[in-house]
């Protein structure tokens, strides 16, 4: 018996709670702060004598009214949704057949190619944005949503191929074989059997493509210069600031609205997302 054995249990419990509480507070604090800032009156917000953690004056919806009524915020939400939908469409169109081919139709070299596709995750936007800014300009897409609709699939397709590949591999081969014996071609089996069976995999791709689109910053900042064509990710931190004046109330309201919906959906699909990153290091 170890001497600390008996004392160890309560000590470990306390340590456990302490660790969780610490990370919970540090990681969550900015979101609490966004929330309380959103509903505070300006006079309360900018008075150093007030305790900033509580409402010293009644809460207000003024910042939200300003955000929705007098800024381009709704427009940016609309732009983000539009880009999201189109990028999701393009991604599925390219990634579904490619992932199926890698999972079923190509043997050893397909596996290599799959790894190569995985490695393109590692090529960052901050290496490509300078040449791409030229490419986008030459295509006449600068300062338009078209630029990011074209470029975003270059990172969502590889990620989706990787996710879908694992998914397709888990479908029993016998099902397709049976369908092909019954007269479907291989491609027919893919379209009529495999795709309908993969709705949850496809849903995962939709979610993550959408999240990647809302999170992207560098390309949108580089290619798009006018406020009206921005997405939420660039519009809020860059164009909600007028000159040097930060309207913190509205700014934090925008942050909150832009983060929470994705966070909810993301949580539901977390395990799938991890699978896309772990290169098979977890089985």
């Amino acid at each position, binding site marked *: 018996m170890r001497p600390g054995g008996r004392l160890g249990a309560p000590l470990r419990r306390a340590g456990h709670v302490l660790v969780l509480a610490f990370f919970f507070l*540090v990681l969550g604090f900015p979101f609490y*702060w966004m929330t309380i800032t959103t509903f505070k009156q300006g006079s309360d917000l900018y008075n150093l004598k007030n305790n900033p953690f509580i409402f010293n004056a009644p809460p207000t919806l003024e910042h939200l009214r300003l955000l929705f009524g007098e800024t381009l915020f709704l427009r940016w939400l609309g732009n983000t949704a539009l880009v999201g939908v189109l990028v999701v469409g393009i991604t599925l169109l390219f990634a579904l057949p490619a992932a199926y081919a890698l999972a*079923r139709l190509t043997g050893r070299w397909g596996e290599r190619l799959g790894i190569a596709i995985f490695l393109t995750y590692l090529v960052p936007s901050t*290496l490509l944005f300078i040449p791409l800014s030229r490419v986008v300009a030459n295509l006449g897409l600068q300062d338009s949503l078209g630029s990011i609709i074209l470029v975003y699939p270059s990172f969502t397709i590889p990620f989706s191929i990787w996710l879908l590949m694992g998914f397709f591999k888990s479908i029993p081969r016998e099902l397709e074989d049976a369908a092909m014996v019954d007269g479907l071609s291989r491609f027919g089996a893919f379209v009529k059997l495999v795709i309908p069976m993969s709705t949850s995999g496809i849903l995962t791709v939709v979610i993550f493509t959408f999240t990647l689109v809302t999170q992207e910053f560098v390309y949108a*900042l580089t290619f798009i210069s006018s406020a009206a064509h921005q997405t939420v990710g660039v519009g*809020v931190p860059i164009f909600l600031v007028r000159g040097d004046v930060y309207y913190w109330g509205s700014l934090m309201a925008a942050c909150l609205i832009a*983060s929470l919906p994705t966070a909810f959906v993301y949580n539901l699909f977390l395990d799938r997302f991890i699978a896309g990153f772990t290169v098979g290091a*977890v089985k």
Partner: protein
Amino acid sequence: MKGRQAWLGPAMLLPAVLYIVALVGVPFILAFFYAVGDVKVGSVGYHFVGLRNFRSIFENPAFLRALRNSFLFTISSQVLVLTGSLTLALALKEKFPGRGIVRFVILLPWVAPISIGSIGWKWILDSLYSVINWVLVALHLVKPFAAPMWLGEPSLAMMSVIAVHVWRILPFSTVIILAGLTSIPKDIPEAAAVDGAGFFRTLFQITLPMLRPILNVAMLFGVIFAVTDMTVIYILTRGGPYDTTQVLPSLAFFTGILGGDLAEGAAISLFLVPLLAVVAYLMLRVARRAEVT
């Protein structure tokens, strides 16, 4: 039957491969061409200028500073992220009431758009209304008008951008490690406990060695996210004060896009390539090992 369908695999694969080659492969190669050319925003034509751009960036003190900062930023944030996320993952592994809510909140920094999280921090670190400073003043740790300028003083600003980056990446690393932890068969650490091994002995001699592949994955992605990121720095400090928090990607942006000197910007960003190559090589080794076992 088999022969008739041999073309189908490549045909289904080709469009995606072409897309990736056109928008990742081609610009990647173009970056090298730009770096030894004279391309500016709006310029036409291309002239080879050899290593002129590289000579010019090496004469620029801001570049040397950015190079150093990139290392500092990456290494210190990764040390903090790995120790922090390992601690947090071990704590999250055990079941407890409210685990779902805790997990949701802990994930928020990673899930929220990075630019949005950063602007939240900009408000927390505000020069006048910083809540951290309010607490410090309330606790009489600093005087009201001598409160720290978190983003206005070079070393504090560097610490702030590192801290915000750690805040952002820690949840990602935590969920990856957590996935690794849950894949360790339960009976192994339990058997060790029965044999009298304490918490730390079990951790260092059993859990950590078994976690190695997944820790490698978390670290490699962490390094990539850190060394290639410019968003946190762009939002919080714009590389300032006086270029003291500039890193390679942000300097490439300021030089190439805002300054209009595409060639020099490309040359700066190319310094990311050796590091990315090393990471790619290590990632392949992880993948190969996972394939064998």
